[in-house]
């Protein structure tokens, strides 16, 4: 069970790539990594979740906390590359109406 996240800055946007499994054990590390992100006014953050092969509700909590902080600090966050499974998780929880989310397919078709 492992999880990793790495960041890349490009054209004033911050891209984060998350991979692995997010559960109770790895979620706290993901939270720390995201809490360490310095959000400046107007910063756009794009988190790519296409390499996540498992995520439970604890992981969801981490993303929502990050979303709320970004909003407070006047930044923007977008989640991209969601698998059908993740997409459904965000739909059931009502979060897809709240957060900016792109599924895997939309990303694919743009290439």
């Amino acid at each position, binding site marked *: 069970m492992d999880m990793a996240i790495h960041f890349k800055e490009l054209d004033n946007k911050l891209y984060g790539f998350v991979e692995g499994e997010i*559960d*109770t054990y790895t979620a706290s590390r993901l*939270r720390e990594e995201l809490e360490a992100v310095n959000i400046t006014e107007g910063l756009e953050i794009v988190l790519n979740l296409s390499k996540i092969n*498992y995520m*439970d*509700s*604890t992981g*969801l*909590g*981490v993303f*929502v*906390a990050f979303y*709320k*902080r970004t909003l407070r600090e006047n930044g923007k966050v977008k989640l991209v590359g969601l698998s059908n*499974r993740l997409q459904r998780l965000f*739909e*059931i*929880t*009502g*979060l897809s*109406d*709240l957060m900016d989310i792109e599924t895997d397919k939309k990303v694919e078709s743009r290439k």
Partner: protein
Amino acid sequence: MEQLESQYQKILSDYMTDQTEKNLYIAQNFTRQLIQKNISPEDVVSVHKNAVEKLFPRRMSEEQLAYDFLIEVMVHYGMAHREHQSLLQKQAEYEMEMKIATNIQKTLLKTDVPQLSSIDIGMISIPIRKMNGDYVHFLYNREDFLSVAVTDVVGKGVPAALCMSMVKYGLETLDYAYKDPSYVLEVINRVIEKSVDDSMFVSMFYACLDMRKSILSYASAGHEPALHYSAKHNEFFPLESTGLLLGVLPETKYLYNEIVLEENDIVVMMTDGVTEFRAHDEMNSREVISSLIMENKYLSAQQLCNLLYKQIEEIQDFKLSDDFTVVIIKK
């Protein structure tokens, strides 16, 4: 200490003359005594050194320094050893506290399944850890109304349990409004949003059955949709109703839907611990659940709950990864 020294000297001397297992066994029992009296490693070496000195005074002149050296080394070992001992004791204290907290939670969040004549109700709720992050709340008014709230706190263990107590008391103070799912969710949402940290949420499926009219009204706050088995159509329908998780935004509105429950209909409410098959990505868990119920629809509501748990536990190789809660009502 002097008494221990002379005992040790005797045991060592016996062994030096006669290397039997019996003498070693006596040594082992003596060690037990040393541990019990909390004698540090460096003291044990010192006891040994003194014994050797008395038993073989001639040999000692050479070995004296080596023993002193070992004492130095053991002082540091002893330091680490004692810290370890003290941490073990602390751990035992924590476990004790945890046990008490678990018992309090069990009493506090105990759910009694109502026994009603017009409707058959079953429930099962199995925590993955010591404390349950799922909670079921029933409210009913004679044979007129029955309302059920199935809740799941994001996160597990102690923080989840603390949050759950808050939900329970919120629901209890709302008993005047139990017929209105939207209102219940909106109030609980405000309570949680105000008092809990940013990454803590609760999902809730709330349903209220008007037993005279046989109308079930329901709303969901980020919760796994319930399943409705319609006997007339011999088919399952999801009770879809999307609403945001509780505790994310302060002013969230929740819509409710209504269905008519007919004779032999079944409603299955559950938490994501039931539908999440971690090790079996390829399986559609909701189909598995539907067909299990379809095949066994003549069982009582409680028997159905038990069966679901047994079967799903087996599919997951007995390694469930989340709290597991199912509530079934059968008309």
